[in-house]
C-alpha cells in the first residue's frame, strides 16, 4: 500500500464527524450565505440537471496511471467512472447513501451460489465504446486478467488474483498466455454473462467488482502500459488526450447512451484536468473560482486553512472524515515490545493530542482515535481500553503517566527502554507526529529514535519487511490505513490478520498473528449474514486492541472546498471522503 | 638660448609663455595608505617644436608620471596635480577634462614602452589607428582606413594594406612599435612623448625605431620628449637632457654638456653605469650604490645624499638643506651643494678617467 489512499470506505451506519471529536471543530452551523459549513457531508449540494460547460480539475500530482486496470489511487477510482463502467459502482450521492453498491455495467448486483464461492453478473445490453464497438462480458474478463495477472500491470491491487481460482499451471496473464481460454475461473457463457469462481466463500464480492479493474477493455485495443494514453471509453466521456505530468481532457462520448445508464447525469460538455499543479495555487484558484475541483480530494493545504475558515468562505467548506486511521504499530517481535505490558505502557504514554496537533489539529488532522476501525466503517464500536487524560497545561496528566509507568514495571523495564520509531521521510506531518510521540514517550523514560524512509519504499523495502524490522530493531511504525474493499474485513484483514505478514510489502507491521483474531476474521467473511458480520468486526477490533499492538492516533479528517459554481457536490464515503465526481457539473 | 630650458624665470606667473611647451612647478602627488607619494615635486622645463628633450632617471624617479601628467592621464581621484603646463598657449592642468581630451592624440601623442600591452588585443592594428584618427578628424571609415595604411607605410611596415587587418599579437615587437608610432602620429601631433620606446625591443630593432622617430620628427617638425633610463638613447636623439631624481630635476644640460661635463654626482653615477665596449671589463661599470629613495619620506636636504659619495665634502648642508636648481653655466643647470670648481675637479680627476 504505497499510496494509502482509500479506495473505498465502508460505513453502513455511522457517518460524518463522530462524537469523539475531542476539542473544537465539527460545528455544523452555517454562517453567511451559501449552502453552509459541512452541508456537503450528508447531502448533495447545489443539485442540478443543467448540462454544458467545462468542469475544471487540477491535481498537484499525477495519476499512478489513468488506465483503469493499472491504478490504485482513490481519486483515480472515483474519476475513472467518467470514462469507464465497471460491473458495479457506488451510488452517486453524499454521506450514507454513497456507500450503497449499485449495478453499473451489470444490470443487477451479483447473484451468488456455491455458498458465496460463485458470483454471476448479467451485463446491460447496448453499451458501446467510444469507437462504436459493443461491450461484451469477454472484455470484462480480459480487463480483470490483464490487470491482475500480467507483469506489466503492477500498479493496481491484486485481489482478483488472490481470491479467484487459478489455472494449473499458474495463469501468466493474457500477454504471455495467448490461449483464448484465459483464466478458467472467469467464465463468459455469452456476451452478456460473466461468472466468477472463488477459492473461498466471499460474501461481499459486489464491492470488489466496483473497482475500476472490471471496466471493460477490448483486447484488440489493449496496448499494455501504453494503454493509459489510448484508453477506450465505455462511459459518458471519452479521453481526448492524456499527457503524463500535464493534463487530461475529456469530451462527450457520442456512443454513450443515457438509456443504458440510469446513474449518470453527464452534465458538463468537457472535463479538463491539469496535473502537477502547485498545491497552494490550486487552493488559491479554487477560492478565486477559476478552478472547480482539486482532483486529489485530500483537502486544502495548511496555509489555506485560515482562509477557508473565514466567515465568507466557511459556507463552502466541508470537514468530513476520510476513512483513514492513522496509527502506530508496535512490533510484537521486537524487544521489549514483545511484552504486552511494554506495549500497554506505550498505549498510555503516547500523547494522542500532541500527535493530532502535529498532524494538523482536529480539523485537518482528524479526531482522536481509540479503536482500529474508524467510525465510518461498519462494525465500529466505541470503546477505549487505555483512556488518557490531558493535564491542564498540555501533555498527559500524572495519572495517565503513572499507569504507563506501572505497566513498564510489569514489563520489567521500570526505567523505560530504547527503540526506534519509523515515519515516511517525504510526509512531513508524519515525521512531525513521530516527533510528538517521541517527546511524550520520553516522559516515562521510553527513548525512541526516529528513522525515516521514503514513502515509495516504506512497505516494500523497510517496515513491511519483517527481517529488516527485526534486524534494525524498529519497534514502532507509524502508518495510515483505509480499507481497500468496503467491509470491516477489508479494513482489518490486511493489517491484523496473520496471513498479512509477508516477507516484503506487508501491511501487518505489528506482525500480529493472534489465532483468535485470525479465526474471527475468517469466520466473519464466510458469514453471509450481514448483521452478524458487522457485529463481529467490532469484537475483533476489541480483540486487537487487547493485544495493544496497534496504537490508534487519529481518524483522519480534511477540510474540503466546493466552489460556488460546482453543482451536485457531495462527499462520497465510498472513495474516502472526497467529492463524488460522477455527476458533478457547473452552473 | 633657444630650445629647451627649465623655465624658472616665469614660473608661477600664470602668464602664457612664448615657448611651445612649458611646464612650471609641476607637482604630482598620490595620497596612499602609507602616506603622500610625491612622484613629481616641482618640475619645470620648456620645449620648442622641432627639438627633443630627453628625460632620464632610474625607475621611480618620476619620468613616466611626468609624461602622463602632461597628457592629463592621471585620475583626479587618486592624484593631486598642481603647477602649470602650457601647450601652445593653453594651460592644461586647470583646463576641463574635455578640453584636454581633445588635445590628446591630436596636439600631443604618446608612444608607450610595451607596444603589446599598450595596444588593445581584441582590435586590429588598423582599427586602432582608424579610431585614433577619426576621434579628431570627421572622415569616413574608408578615408580613415586609407590614412591608416598610409601611416603604416610611412613607419616602414611592409605591405601595409595587408597588415592593417592584423591583430597586435600577429606583429613582431619592432613592427608593433612602428604601428604604435603610426597610431601616435596619425593626427600629426605637435608634441610627441616617447616613454621608453625601445626598452622592450631587440637592440637591432631599437636603432631602427630611434631612426624612425628622428626622421618623423624632422618630417612633422614636432617637439619630442624622450623618456628613458638609457643614456645611449638620449645621446642618439636628444638636443637637451633633463636628469630626474626623486621627482625633481637635478641637472639640465645640452647633450654635449651632459656627457662631457656633467655637474651632478647622480649624473656621474648614471654615466658610470653605462656599459661601454671600449673599456676593460673590470672597470666597465660603476653602479650607483643603494636604492632609489622613498617618495613618501624623501631624504632630507639633497634627496641623493644617502647615496652620494661626496656628501661629506660639504659639512651638514647636504642633509639639512635642499639644493636649488641653479644655472652654473649658460644653459647648464644643476642642483648640488658642491662648489662649481670642486665638481669640475672631481669630474676630471675621478670620474672621467674611469668611464
Amino acid at each position, binding site marked *: 500500500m504505497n499510496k494509502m489512499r482509500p479506495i473505498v470506505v465502508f460505513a453502513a451506519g455511522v457517518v460524518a464527524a463522530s462524537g469523539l471529536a475531542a476539542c*473544537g*471543530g465539527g460545528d455544523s452551523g452555517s454562517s453567511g450565505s451559501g449552502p453552509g459549513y459541512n452541508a456537503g457531508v450528508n447531502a448533495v449540494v447545489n443539485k442540478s440537471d443543467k448540462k454544458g460547460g467545462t468542469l475544471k480539475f487540477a491535481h498537484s500530482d499525477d495519476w499512478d496511471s489513468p488506465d483503469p486496470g493499472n491504478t490504485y489511487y482513490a481519486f483515480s477510482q472515483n474519476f475513472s467512472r467518467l470514462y469507464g463502467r465497471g460491473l458495479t459502482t457506488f451510488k452517486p450521492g453524499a454521506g450514507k447513501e454513497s456507500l450503497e453498491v449499485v449495478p453499473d455495467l451489470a444490470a443487477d448486483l451479483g447473484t451468488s451460489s456455491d455458498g458465496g464461492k460463485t458470483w454471476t453478473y448479467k451485463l446491460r445490453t447496448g453499451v458501446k465504446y467510444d469507437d462504436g464497438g459493443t461491450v461484451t462480458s469477454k472484455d470484462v474478463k480480459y480487463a480483470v486478467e490483464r490487470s491482475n495477472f500480467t507483469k506489466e500491470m503492477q500498479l493496481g491491487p491484486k485481489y482478483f488474483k488472490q481470491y479467484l481460482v487459478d489455472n494449473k499451471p499458474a495463469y501468466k496473464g493474457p500477454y504471455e498466455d495467448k490461449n483464448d481460454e484465459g483464466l478458467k475461473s472467469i467464465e463468459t457463457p455469452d456476451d452478456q454473462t460473466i461468472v466468477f469462481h472463488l477459492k473461498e466463500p466471499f460474501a461481499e464480492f459486489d464491492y470488489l467488482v466496483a473497482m475500476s479493474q472490471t471496466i471493460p477493455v477490448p483486447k484488440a485495443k489493449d496496448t499494455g502500459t501504453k494503454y493509459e494514453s489510448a484508453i477506450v471509453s465505455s462511459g459518458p466521456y471519452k479521453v481526448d488526450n492524456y499527457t503524463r505530468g500535464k493534463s487530461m481532457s475529456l469530451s462527450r462520448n457520442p456512443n454513450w447512451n443515457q438509456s443504458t445508464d440510469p446513474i449518470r447525469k453527464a452534465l458538463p460538455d468537457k472535463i479538463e484536468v491539469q496535473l502537477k499543479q502547485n498545491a497552494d495555487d490550486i487552493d488559491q484558484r479554487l477560492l478565486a473560482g477559476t478552478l472547480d475541483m482539486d482532483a486529489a480530494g485530500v483537502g486544502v*493545504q*495548511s*496555509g*489555506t*486553512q*485560515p*482562509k477557508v*475558515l473565514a466567515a465568507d468562505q466557511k459556507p463552502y467548506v466541508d470537514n468530513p472524515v476520510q476513512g483513514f486511521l492513522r496509527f502506530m504499530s508496535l512490533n510484537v517481535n521486537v524487544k521489549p515490545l514483545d511484552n504486552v505490558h511494554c506495549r500497554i505502557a506505550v498505549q498510555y504514554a503516547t500523547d494522542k*493530542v*500532541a500527535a493530532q*496537533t*502535529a498532524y*494538523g*489539529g*482536529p*480539523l*485537518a*488532522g482528524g479526531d482522536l482515535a481509540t479503536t482500529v476501525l474508524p467510525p465510518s466503517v461498519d462494525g465500529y464500536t466505541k470503546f477505549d481500553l487505555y483512556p488518557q487524560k490531558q493535564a491542564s*497545561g*498540555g501533555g498527559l496528566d500524572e495519572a495517565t503517566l503513572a499507569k504507563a509507568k506501572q505497566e513498564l514495571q510489569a514489563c520489567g523495564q521500570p526505567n523505560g527502554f530504547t527503540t526506534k520509531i519509523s515515519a515516511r521521510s517525504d510526509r*512531513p506531518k508524519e*515525521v*512531525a507526529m513521530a*516527533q*510528538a510521540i517521541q*517527546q511524550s514517550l520520553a516522559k516515562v523514560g521510553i527513548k525512541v*529514535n*526516529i*528513522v*525515516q524512509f*521514503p514513502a515509495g519504499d516504506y512497505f516494500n523495502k523497510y517496515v513491511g519487511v519483517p527481517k529488516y524490522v527485526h534486524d*534494525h530493531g524498529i519497534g514502532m511504525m507509524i502508518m495510515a490505513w483505509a480499507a481497500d474493499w468496503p467491509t470491516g474485513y477489508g479494513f482489518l484483514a490486511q493489517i491484523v490478520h496473520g496471513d498479512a505478514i509477508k516477507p516484503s510489502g506487508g501491511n501487518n507491521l505489528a506482525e500480529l498473528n493472534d489465532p483468535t483474531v485470525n479465526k474471527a476474521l475468517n469466520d466473519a467473511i464466510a458469514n453471509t449474514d450481514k448483521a452478524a458480520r458487522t457485529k463481529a468486526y467490532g469484537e475483533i477490533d476489541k480483540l486487537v486492541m487487547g493485544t495493544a499492538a496497534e496504537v490508534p492516533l487519529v481518524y483522519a479528517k480534511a477540510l474540503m472546498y466546493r466552489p460556488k459554481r460546482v453543482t451536485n457536490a457531495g462527499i462520497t464515503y465510498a472513495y474516502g471522503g472526497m467529492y463524488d465526481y460522477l455527476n458533478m457539473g457547473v452552473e | 638660448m633657444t630650445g629647451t630650458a627649465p623655465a624658472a624665470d616665469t614660473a608661477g606667473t600664470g602668464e602664457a609663455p612664448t615657448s611651445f611647451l612649458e611646464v612650471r612647478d609641476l607637482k604630482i602627488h*598620490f595620497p*596612499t*595608505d*602609507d602616506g603622500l*607619494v610625491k*612622484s613629481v615635486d616641482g618640475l619645470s622645463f620648456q620645449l620648442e617644436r622641432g627639438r627633443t628633450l630627453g628625460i632620464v632617471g632610474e*625607475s*621611480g*624617479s618620476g619620468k*613616466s608620471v611626468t609624461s602622463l601628467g602632461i597628457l592629463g592621464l592621471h585620475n583626479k581621484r*587618486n*592624484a593631486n596635480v598642481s603647477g602649470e603646463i602650457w601647450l601652445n598657449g593653453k594651460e592644461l592642468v586647470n583646463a576641463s577634462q574635455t578640453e584636454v581630451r581633445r588635445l590628446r592624440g591630436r596636439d600631443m601623442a604618446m608612444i608607450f*614602452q*610595451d607596444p*603589446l*600591452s599598450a595596444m588593445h*588585443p581584441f582590435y586590429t592594428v588598423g582599427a586602432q589607428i582608424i579610431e585614433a584618427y577619426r576621434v579628431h578628424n570627421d572622415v569616413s571609415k574608408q578615408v580613415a582606413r586609407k590614412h591608416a595604411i598610409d601611416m603604416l607605410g610611412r613607419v616602414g611596415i611592409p605591405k601595409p594594406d595587408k597588415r592593417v587587418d592584423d591583430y597586435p*599579437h600577429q606583429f613582431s615587437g619592432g613592427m608593433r612599435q612602428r604601428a604604435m608610432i603610426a597610431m601616435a602620429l596619425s593626427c600629426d601631433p605637435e608634441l610627441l612623448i616617447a616613454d621608453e620606446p625601445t626598452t*622592450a625591443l631587440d637592440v637591432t630593432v631599437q636603432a631602427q625605431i630611434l631612426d624612425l622617430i628622428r626622421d618623423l620628427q624632422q618630417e612633422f617638425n614636432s617637439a619630442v620628449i624622450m623618456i628613458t633610463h638609457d643614456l645611449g638613447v638620449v645621446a642618439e636623439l636628444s638636443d637637451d637632457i633633463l636628469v630626474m631624481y626623486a621627482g625633481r630635476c637635478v641637472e639640465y644640460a645640452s647633450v654635449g654638456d651632459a656627457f662631457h661635463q656633467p655637474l651632478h654626482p647622480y649624473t656621474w653615477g648614471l654615466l658610470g653605469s653605462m656599459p661601454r665596449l671600449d673599456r676593460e671589463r673590470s672597470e666597465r661599470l660603476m653602479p650607483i650604490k643603494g*636604492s*632609489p*629613495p*622613498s*617618495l*613618501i*619620506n624623501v631624504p632630507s636636504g639633497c634627496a641623493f645624499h644617502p647615496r652620494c659619495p661626496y656628501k661629506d665634502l660639504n659639512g651638514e648642508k647636504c642633509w639639512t638643506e635642499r639644493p636649488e636648481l641653479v644655472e652654473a653655466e649658460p644653459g647648464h643647470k644643476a642642483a648640488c651643494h658642491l662648489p662649481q670648481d670642486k665638481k669640475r675637479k672631481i669630474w676630471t680627476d675621478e670620474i672621467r678617467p674611469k668611464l
Partner: protein
Amino acid sequence: MAAPIEVTGSDTEAQPEAVLAGVDGKKIQGRSLGQIAWMRLKRDKVALTGALVVIVLILIAIFGPFFTQNPLTYHQNLIDPTYNRPKTGFWHSGISGDHWLGVEPGTGRDMLARIVHGARISLLVSFLATLVSVVIGTVMGIIAGYFGGWVDYTISRAMDAFLAFPLLLFAIALVGVVSDGAFGFSGNGLRIGVLVMVIGFFNWPYIGRIIRGQTLSLREREFVDAARSMGARNSYVLFKEVLPNLVAPILVYSTLLIPTNILFEAALSFLGVGVIPPTPSWGGMLTLAVPIYSSDPMYMIIPGMAIFITVLAFNLFGDGLRDALDPRAK
C-alpha cells in the same frame, strides 16, 4: 570540459609601471603580511561587523544551547487547534515574553531554542565540511600545481568534471543511499558524518583550483627554485616552502567556503535529507514553513533570516579578509 585554450603571446604581459613605484620597498617588507592585513582589515568596518557577527554566532552555537529552553518541549497550550498555529503574537508567531521568537506551529516548541540549536548544527556541519574540502582541495591543488604534467592534467580534468555534475542531486542521492546503521554509526551521528563528507567532498575543486593556481606561481618563484636547486626533496619543498605561502589563500577561501557550505547544508535539509528530526535545522524549519508561509509568514522569516544573517556575515568577513590579504584579488 575545459577547453585547451592557448593564449598566444600573452606571457610577456608586462606590469604597467606602477604609480606607486618608488614607495619604499623596505618599509613594507618590514611589516609582516599579517600586520598589513590586520591594518587593512581594521579599517574595513563592514568586514569587521561581519567578523563580529561571526564571533557572536559561533559563541551562540557553542554556549547558546545551555541557556535556551529545551527545543523539544511541546507547548501545546499555545497552539490554536482550529488553525494549528500559535494563538497569540504578531502574525500568529506566538512571540511573547517567554518565547522571544515565538513558537513553532503545531507543536509550540520554542523558536529561539530551535534557532540556536539549529545554529550549532549548521555551523558544525559547515565547518567540518569546509575542513574536508580544504584538506582534499589543498592536497590535490598542491600536487597538481607542483608536479604539473600529466598529474596536473588528470587532477584538473577531474576538477572540471566535478563542475559538470549536478552535485545537489548526487548529494541527495548519496545521503539517501547510506542507510541507518552503516559503518557502525546510526542516527544523527551518522547523518552529520555523511553530510560533512558529501558537502566537503563536492566542494573541494573550488579550493583545489585556487591552490593549484597559487602553487603554479609559487613554483616559479626564486625561493622554491633555490630550495630545489639545493637538492631539497619534493616533500620538503612542498611542506616547508610552498605550504606556508598558501596559508593566506587557504584562510581566505575557507572563510568564503563556510557560507557556501551553510547554504548547501540548508538546501539539503530543505530537500529533506538534512539532520534527522527532532534535531532542529534551519533548512528543515523552512521545509515545514513552505505549506503555511502564506498564512504564518513568521515561521518562514525566522529561519530564513537566520540563514541569511549567518551566511552574509561570513561572506562579509571573508570578503574583507581577502581584500586585506590580497588586495589585487579584489
